[in-house]
């Protein structure tokens, strides 16, 4: 698939409509790469003129910050901001709620002020402006439960965008007991993704998977690459991977575009 970089736009003397911030997971993690590609499919379907930073992109520093390494975070932030400001970036969209939160809320006081969207918010905008239509019946009648990512939901009070677009797939949206502001974390946040959990009687992702299984879903929808990993592992642990798919909202939408 052809994806243009900011450097290429620059060389042509053009500005893209949006910058797609792919994020480290979206760039390297095999599962998350599929989400990245699904979102690109959506952007292409809506004829969005977008760019990525490609080899120039670097970790936002979000995970370092939450691990307590403010130095590393600010080093990363300042480097990224220099790059983004150099390209005169105005609008950023990302599939990672952690990058979304970090760039939107923590970059401004370091000199990086942008309009930042989580991909579910951007997809919602594409649909409501008529640029994207979801006509396929791929998920019609399927039971889908949406797991709120902490950094989209509680952290930024965005509970509606992912649900609003999931409804467009004509799926039957079912809520877990803990949802929206009381949603349970998948267990990956705060740098937990990169370390072994402390001693306890259960892993957080297992508990969250049990929450999801209670709704008897066909699909568990996520909006974060880390949540996706955690929930996928949880479903495998429960030996339900043949019955229940864990898919990002972007994938569900990409599979529901007009064929």
């Amino acid at each position, binding site marked *: 698939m*052809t994806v243009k970089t900011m450097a290429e736009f620059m060389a042509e003397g053009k500005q893209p409509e949006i910058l797609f911030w792919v994020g480290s997971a979206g760039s*390297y993690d095999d599962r998350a790469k599929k989400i990245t590609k699904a979102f*690109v499919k959506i952007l292409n379907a809506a004829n969005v003129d977008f760019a*990525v930073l490609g080899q120039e992109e670097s970790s936002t520093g979000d995970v370092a910050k*939450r*691990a307590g390494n*403010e130095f590393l975070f600010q080093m990363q932030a300042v480097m990224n901001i220099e790059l983004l400001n150099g390209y005169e970036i105005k609008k950023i969209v990302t599939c990672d709620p952690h990058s979304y939160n970090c760039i939107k809320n923590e970059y401004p006081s370091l000199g990086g002020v942008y309009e930042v969207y989580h991909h579910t918010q951007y997809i919602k905008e594409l649909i409501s402006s008529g640029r994207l239509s979801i006509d396929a019946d791929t998920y019609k009648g399927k039971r889908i439960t949406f797991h709120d990512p*902490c950094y989209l939901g509680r952290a930024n009070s965005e509970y509606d965008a992912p649900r609003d677009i999931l409804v467009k797939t004509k799926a039957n949206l079912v809520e877990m007991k803990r949802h929206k502001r009381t949603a349970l974390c998948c267990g990956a946040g*705060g740098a937990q993704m*990169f370390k072994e959990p402390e001693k306890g009687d259960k892993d957080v992702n297992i508990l969250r998977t049990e929450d999801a299984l209670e709704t008897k879903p066909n699909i568990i929808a996520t909006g974060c690459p880390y949540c996706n990993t955690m929930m996928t592992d949880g479903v495998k642990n429960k030996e339900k991977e043949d019955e229940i798919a864990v898919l990002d909202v972007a994938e569900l939408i990409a599979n529901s575009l007009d064929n």
Partner: protein
Amino acid sequence: MTYLPNILFAIALIVGIGYFAKNVKRLIRNIKLGQSIDASDNKAERWRNVALIAFGQSKMVKRPISGILHVIVYVGFIVINLEVLEIIIDGLFGTHRIALNVLPTEVYGSLIGTFEILACLVLISVIIFWIRRNVLKIARFIKREMKGWPKTDGNLILYFEVVLMTLFLVMNASDIEFQSLNSGNVVSQFIAPWFSSLPESTLHLIERGTWWLHILGILVFLNYLYFSKHLHILLAFPNVFYGSLKPKGQFNNLEAVTKEVKLMMDPDADPFAAPAEDTSEEEPAKFGASDVMDLNRVQLLNAYTCTECGRCTSACPANLTGKKLSPRKIMMDTRDRLEEVGKNIDANGGVFKDDGKQLLGDYITNEELWACTTCNACVEECPVSINPLSIILDMRRYLVMEQSAAPSDLNNMMSNIENNGAPWPYNQMDRLNWADE
């Protein structure tokens, strides 16, 4: 001699309020041990929060059972305290139910009637609270950090309220004059018959006795606050006012770090320059927090405000899965350590003498700090805008930046970011490979 009760009353009032004021001063002194923090922005929104969250209890009722019961006790507490105003005037001037001289009987009656109904509702609510804690043993009330004093404290408050409400009702029931008005004795008229066989003089003694115990009880309760989790009845208001207005996901950027990073990234800086002669006496900034003095004043106010309800802990993913971390314990530890530091200062003539202890390690362990997923469930749950997460983060910062004491997996992750701009050991040049796969 006729003035003796008035004088005794005035002394009780002065001692009661005086000792409380002394402890409030100590409390403010302790909070000021923390770093100053600017919360002067958005006054309007802050007052709005005080109105909705503190006065309006909007977050309390997110859990309907405890929320509604709490609203009853809270409204009862505020409204019945109007009666205390009358008691104080009566006590100082030797009058009896002075408000009857000012208000028409029906108005007075309807006021006292309201108080009596509320007192009854408070009694019922408090008994349900007691059952929830001691019979039903609801999980959040019997967690590890709730053993010993915190448990006793919680029950003592309930006993206090039972006693105060009972005294109020018995006081009204044994007041012959008040009962003969037959206005406002909505509840006490049913208690009055229990005393009907007693001679008038005994009845008068009971009335006086309950009157005195009621007001003395209130003064004791007031002074109990400082030593109890119950301070929230006062501190919830300033605490909500100073609560963060930013999106919950936004963690503060440390200014001290920004300065150093700017210096490092400055292309004009000469890397070989001799360090400037440091003439300032200023200590180098400490990154993160290892003790209460490193926390900011809002965080310390948070600690005093916490009433140990445990809603945070009952929503914490780490705690729910059996890890040691409990956000409530973070707040309780912070307060306990702050009190210890305060007592140390009092004992050493106003200066803190190093006691070889600190919040980190002696109260809060690394294991607790590293179990946090920063999911903000605790922050979301707190009905009075306490933020345990900010303390956890500040202590992680100390562990990582001052002690390089992160778990080894996290050190690997961080060196990956330093070396190749991703938390995994992948080459930055491969960032766009997904497009061709």
